[in-house]
C-alpha cells in the first residue's frame, strides 16, 4: 500500500519515482522527435538543442552542463529537495535522449503532426514532473529568482528568453523549421496553461 493511502494529498516516494520516470521519458521522446525534425523549443532545452545543432555535440551533455549554474538559484529559492529532484530529472532526460535513438528512429515524421505530438508529450511530461515537486531546472528557476530580487515577473523573464532564443534561431535555422518549432512550443504552453491546475490536481 502506498503512503498516500493514509494521506491522499501527499505523494509517496514510489509515486514520485514513477512520475519522474514517466515525465522524463515523455520529454526525452519529444526531444528526440524535435532532433529528428531539426526543430527547437523554448527555455533551457531549446537553447541546448540550438547549441547542440551548432557545435554538433550530443544534446544530453549540452543540456546537463547548461543546467549546472542554475542549481544554485534553485537551492536559494526552492530548497534542497527541489534541487535534488530537479537534478535527478535533468540527469534522466540527458541519459534518455542519448539512449532512445538506439531503440527508435523514424522513417517518416510529418512535421505538423510531429510538432503537435511533441507539444502534447512535453506538456504531459512536464505536468507529471511539476505535480511531483520536480522541474527541469534552468531558466524557470532563474526567472523566479529575478522576480524575488527585482519584482520583474517570472513569466516575462521566460517570455523574453524565448523571444530572444527564437529570434536568434530565425537567423540560424530555416524559417519553416522555426515555424514548426513555434507551433510545438505554443501547443505545449496552451496544454500546460489549461491543465496545470493546483485546485484540481490537489496532491503535492
Amino acid at each position, binding site marked *: *500500500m*502506498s503512503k*498516500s*493511502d493514509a494521506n*491522499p*494529498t501527499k505523494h509517496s516516494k514510489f*509515486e514520485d519515482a*514513477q512520475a519522474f520516470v*514517466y515525465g522524463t*521519458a*515523455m520529454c526525452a*521522446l519529444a526531444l528526440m522527435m524535435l532532433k529528428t525534425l531539426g526543430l527547437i523549443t523554448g527555455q533551457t532545452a531549446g537553447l541546448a538543442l540550438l547549441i547542440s545543432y551548432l557545435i554538433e555535440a550530443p544534446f544530453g551533455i549540452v543540456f546537463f552542463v547548461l543546467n549546472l549554474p542554475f542549481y544554485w538559484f534553485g537551492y536559494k529559492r526552492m530548497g534542497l529537495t527541489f534541487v535534488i529532484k530537479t537534478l535527478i530529472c535533468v540527469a534522466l532526460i540527458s541519459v534518455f535522449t542519448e539512449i*532512445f535513438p*538506439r*531503440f*527508435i*528512429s*523514424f*522513417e*517518416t*515524421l*510529418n512535421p505538423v*503532426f*510531429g510538432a*503537435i*505530438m511533441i507539444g*502534447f*508529450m512535453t506538456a*504531459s511530461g512536464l505536468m507529471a514532473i511539476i505535480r511531483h515537486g520536480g522541474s527541469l531546472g534552468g531558466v524557470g528557476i532563474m526567472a523566479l529568482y529575478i522576480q524575488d530580487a527585482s519584482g520583474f515577473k517570472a513569466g516575462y523573464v521566460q517570455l523574453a528568453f524565448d523571444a530572444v532564443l527564437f529570434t536568434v534561431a530565425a537567423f540560424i535555422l530555416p524559417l519553416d523549421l522555426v515555424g514548426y518549432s513555434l507551433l510545438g512550443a505554443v501547443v505545449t504552453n496552451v*496544454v500546460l496553461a*489549461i*491543465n496545470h*491546475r493546483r*485546485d*484540481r*490536481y*490537489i*496532491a503535492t
Partner: protein
Amino acid sequence: MPAPHPLPKNPPKHTLLEDIQGLTIGLITTAIGLSFIAQLGFLTGQTAGLALVISYMTHMSFSWVFWLINIPFYILAYVRMGKEFTIKSALSVTALSILMAYIPPLMTFQTLNPFFGTIAFGVLTGFGLLGVFRHKSSLGGLGVLALIAQDHFGIRAGLVQIAFDAILFAVAFFLFDAHVVIYSLFGALILNGVIAFNHRRDIYIAN
C-alpha cells in the same frame, strides 16, 4: 492497487471547452500509442484488442473493425450510464477510429525496438485514456457490459474484464507467435499500471 478514497463533495466541473481539449489530447495520444503496437503487429486487451485481432486476421482496417464492434455496446451504455456518457463515448470511439486511419502513415519507424515500442504504447495510451476518463468519456465497449454483468449477476465488473482478456490472449496464443502475445501482455500490464496509479478521483478532483 491504491485503495478507494471518499470523493470530494461538489467537485469543480469541467467547462465544455476543457472537455473538448481534454478529449482531443486524450484521443490523439491514445491513437499514437496504438500506432506503436499496430506497426509492431502486437495486441492489447479489451475491445481495442479484439478489434486488433480481427483486423490482423481479416486484413480489414482497425478503424472500421473498432467502430463496428462498438455499436452494440452503445445500447447497453444508454441503458446503464445515461445519454451524456453514451454520446461522449460514441464521439470518442468515432474520433479514435478516424485518427487511427490517419495517424499511422504520419509516423513510420525505421527502427522500433519491440520492448521500447511496447512501453511507449503503455505509457502513451495510459496517459491518453486518463484524459478520456477524467473528462467523463470512455472508448465504449466491454467496460459497460462488465458493469451490467455486475448489476444483474453480481459478478465483479473487473473480473468480467479480466476473464475477457484471458480468453482473448488465450485465443491469440493459437493465432500468433508466442513472442507477440508476451510483448502484448507486457504492454497491457504497463497500460493498466499507469491507469491504476494515476486515475484517482480523490487527487484529480474535477468532474
